[in-house]
Structure formats: structure tokens, C-alpha cells
């Protein structure tokens, strides 16, 4: 129960307003929801596909709904949540664009985090003719769950095309810190990207 919050979750949790109604997609063992419930009076639900994680959520008293994100969010009404969070799951989805659209349907805002495939380590590996294995992307090509990797530039391009406005972003290194290098050349030096999105007109 007292395990420290995963770094990506610690980085995004200040973005969640006090008392918000939230939906956490791919909520894992429920760490973020438990943390936010205790510290920020947030209430909500997690969606999780893995039975062991579902049991872990139940054990910490987090509301968890066993579900496959690729099946969409049809169980939830339009605008039912203040914030819909999805951390480190975008790149493992069948249709990441469809899921983000669903997040913005059921949420007033969406927070998405993903590893940046534009990072120099990735580029170096590809230049050498090999699929990248980096601290942020530790799996090999044949056993990785990541099937839709993107760069910071790709993601922002998708947002522009779909009319999703970026209300906040944080481009961080793998320890989830900011740096001068990232500020100067974000797509080359960012390892972990955090975005808060809104539908236009919000």
C-alpha cells in the first residue's frame, strides 16, 4: 500500500484537479487511483484487463472494471468524467486514435502519456539498422506489447488533424525530469511525453 507511485503517475498526478471524477484506463494495480483518492479527494474507476491487476485493485479498495480498452468505452456516457487518464498504454492499443477520441467523448479532458519514439537512442539504433531497445522501451521487437509507437511530432500532428487541443504538455527524460536539452530539441531528447488534451471549444 505504501509503495511509491510510479514515476509517470507521480508526474501527471498534479494535473488532476482536487475532487475530480476520473477514469483511469489501464489502471494497473490501482496505485494512481488510490493515491489520488487519499491525497486529492478524487473518486473514480479504473479499467484493467489483467486479472492479477484487477485483484490488486480490489485489495486496495479501488473501483476497478475488468475491460479491454480496444473494445472502446461504450459503457460510459458522454462527459461522464472530469478527467480520463491513460498512462503508458497508447502504444499498445489496436487503434490509439480511436481510444483517445473515446477518452475525449467520456471526459472533459484526457491525459495521455507515452514513450517518445523520436528520442536519439531510438534513432541511433534504427540508423544502425536495428530495432531499438532502450531504457524507455526495454522489450525486443518480437516480445514487445508496443505495436503503435509514435514520436512527439507524430502525436501532435494527430492532435492537430483531429482538432484536439493540447492544453498542457510535459516532455521529460526517463526519470521524468525536465531539461534544457529537451526544451531546445524536444523530439530528440524527450523520453517520456505527457499531454493533456481537450476537445475544441472547451
Amino acid at each position, binding site marked *: 500500500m505504501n509503495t511509491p507511485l510510479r514515476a509517470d503517475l507521480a508526474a501527471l498526478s498534479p494535473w488532476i484537479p482536487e475532487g475530480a471524477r476520473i477514469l483511469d484506463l489501464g489502471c494497473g494495480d490501482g496505485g494512481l487511483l488510490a493515491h489520488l483518492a487519499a491525497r486529492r479527494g478524487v473518486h473514480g474507476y479504473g479499467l484493467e484487463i489483467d*486479472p492479477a491487476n484487477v485483484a490488486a485493485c480490489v485489495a486496495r479498495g479501488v473501483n476497478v472494471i475488468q475491460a479491454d480498452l480496444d473494445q472502446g468505452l461504450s459503457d460510459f456516457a458522454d462527459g461522464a468524467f472530469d478527467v480520463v487518464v491513460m498512462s503508458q498504454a497508447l502504444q499498445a492499443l489496436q487503434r490509439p486514435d480511436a481510444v483517445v477520441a473515446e477518452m475525449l467523448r467520456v471526459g472533459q479532458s484526457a491525459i495521455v502519456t507515452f514513450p517518445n519514439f523520436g528520442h536519439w537512442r531510438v534513432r541511433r539504433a534504427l540508423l544502425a539498422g536495428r530495432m531499438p531497445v532502450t531504457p524507455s522501451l526495454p522489450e525486443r521487437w518480437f516480445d514487445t506489447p508496443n505495436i503503435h509507437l509514435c514520436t512527439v511530432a507524430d502525436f501532435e500532428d494527430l492532435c492537430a488533424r483531429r482538432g484536439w487541443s493540447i492544453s498542457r504538455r510535459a516532455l521529460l527524460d526517463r526519470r521524468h525530469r525536465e531539461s534544457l536539452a529537451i526544451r531546445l530539441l524536444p523530439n530528440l531528447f524527450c523520453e517520456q511525453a505527457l499531454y493533456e488534451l481537450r476537445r475544441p471549444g472547451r
Partner: protein
Amino acid sequence: MNTPVGSVGVVTPQKLVFEEALALDCGRSLPRFELMVETYGQLNAAASNAVLICHALSGDHHAAGLHSEDDSKPGWWDNCIGPGKPIDTDRFFVVALNNLGGCKGSTGPVSLNPDNGQPYGPDFPLLTVGDWVRSQARLADRLGIRQWAAVIGGSLGGMQVQQWAIEFPARIRHAVVIASAPELSAQNIAFNEIARQAILSDPDFHGGRYYEQGTVPSRGLKLARMLGHITYLSDEAMRAKFGAELKAATPAFNFDVEFEVESYLRHQGQSFVDRFDANTYLLMTKALDYFDPARDAGGSLVDAYRAAQAKFLVIAFASDWRFSPARSREIVRALVAAGRAVSYAEIDSQLGHDDFLMPIPQYHGVLRTYLARVAEEGP
């Protein structure tokens, strides 16, 4: 004494008599009624650790333990209720009953009608899930239980759990709804109707007055149960269990039992006739058909659940087509829309609807974990 590990041991059912009339949804009332009850574990001083077990279509008050030391079969949910089991009798005071209208000792069609001293038979009023829950509330009063720590039930039992949460929101802290549905589908009702027609059209049924005639509508009840059993199992489970192999080397070209599945169904049907009453079966299937909390709330399941205060755990089984996971997700969806606390687990399973009675590790694991929290957090 040779008590199996984790067993509540030898238990003695008790009959509780309620002398105050119970008004029923059909407009009639029962002047008095009796409920057969078993309890396991100890009620704590604050009476805050009580758990109610609601049974399904053919269940009864004998949920756990043995009735004598040489009893061959334990209660129907013995794999889940007992010391150290998911419904842990070291922590909870567990109450199981035979519902009103049942045939295992609670007031029902086989009981004597005080008006004429004859068995009620077809004169016994048809009941609803709401009627059951109101009679269970009387039982809670009698046992000194103001609020259940949890009400737990599978299938038709899960409907009673939902009704408890909606109708007595202050009297239930946790609602555990297993392999259930927010109402029956047309397909479910259709199966029930065929089961009823099998009984009603049996010449030995005599309009429900077969007790006086000295007959039993065993053909009809047997057919009803055979039909039910098909719906409790998945196609895959039947395939795995029976295949389509002939019992003999060659076909006999007659209507004797030739396939394993025929022999299974006939056995299930026959053993049911020996232990169950046809009028009760009719009544139970009607209670299932009538259950529809959305209808009671003006057509909205979400509105129905707004009244609830309990935290919910909803569990469904992947291979269950009688009460499929999609039906449980309807419950979950409405609970979320109503802002209620709910967790939902979908269990990988093979057997079908009957899986809710099986000790599947993933299933019992979630139940055990959830109930451990219920025990720890208290009221």
C-alpha cells in the same frame, strides 16, 4: 470427528416463525410464514459482521457444512463458505435461508393453507424478488442485524442482492452480484416458459393439486430441469464432458439412451424430481421473469441504482451464456452512471452459468480479497 478442512462442520437448520402478516407485490398477503435458516460463524457484539447468502433457482438454506457426520454431500456452496474460505466464517456471521415459496421447509406451495388446512398448491401466491427481500428483512430484524456487512448471491440470488441494495440502502454495506442480470432477456423468459409448459401440461399436474391426487408431475418437472441444465452449461463444456459419441459401438435405432449427454440429462432430471416441488419451480421461474428494477424506477436502471448506497462487486463468467458477461456489464454501466462504487471482474471459465458454484481460483481469489476488505473496514 472427521470434519473436512475448512468446513463449518455439522450444522442444524432452524425454522423461524413470523406471525406478522407479509404484504406481497401481487396484492395478497401471507398471514404468517416460516423460514428455514442455517447460520455459520458468530455474530459479533456490534452485529456488524453478518453476511446474507441468497440462493438461486433450486438452492436452499443448506449452503455449507454437513447435516450429520456421515452426510455424503455438503451444502450447495460449501467450497466458498467456511473457516478460511472466501466467505470466511472465522470473520463473518453467515446466514442462509430457504426462500419463501420454497420446498425445503419454508412456507410455500407444499405448506398447509391456514384457511382450509389443505396444502396451498396453486393457491400459494406468486412472489417477486422484492417479496423475498422483504421477508429476508424480517429475518434480519429477528436475528438483530440492522445492517448486513454484505449480501451475496449468484444468478437469481444476484437479483435479490440488487433488490436489497435498492430497497434497503441503509441495511447493506456491500452488494456482491454474481453471474446475474438486471432483468431477464426474452430468451431467458422463453426458456422459463417452456419449463413451465412442461410442468403445466403434465397430466399428473392436476392444476397444481397433485398432492391431493397422490401424483407427482414428474415428467414435466424432469423435462423442465433437463432444459435448464442445457442452459447452465456452455457448448464447449458439453462437448468436453460428453462429446457426441454413442455409448454402444453401433446405433440401436431406438429412443433409449444412446448418447452420454442423454444419460446425463435424464439423471439430472430424475434426481431433481426426487428433491424438488413442481409448484415451487413454477413460482421461482415467475419471480425471475418479474424481476426488473428499472421498470420499478420508471424505466431507468440508472435511476433504480441512484437509491443504492452499497458498494458493489459484480462478477461474471466468460463462458456463461444464460447470464452472459454483457448482462453483468449492463449492471456495472448503470451503477457507474448512478455514481455508485463498483468493481467488476470477468472470470475466464469453461463450464458456463454453473461456474458460479465452482471453486475457480481467479473467482474465489477476487471474492476472498474483496470480502477481506469488507471484514477489515467494518461499518
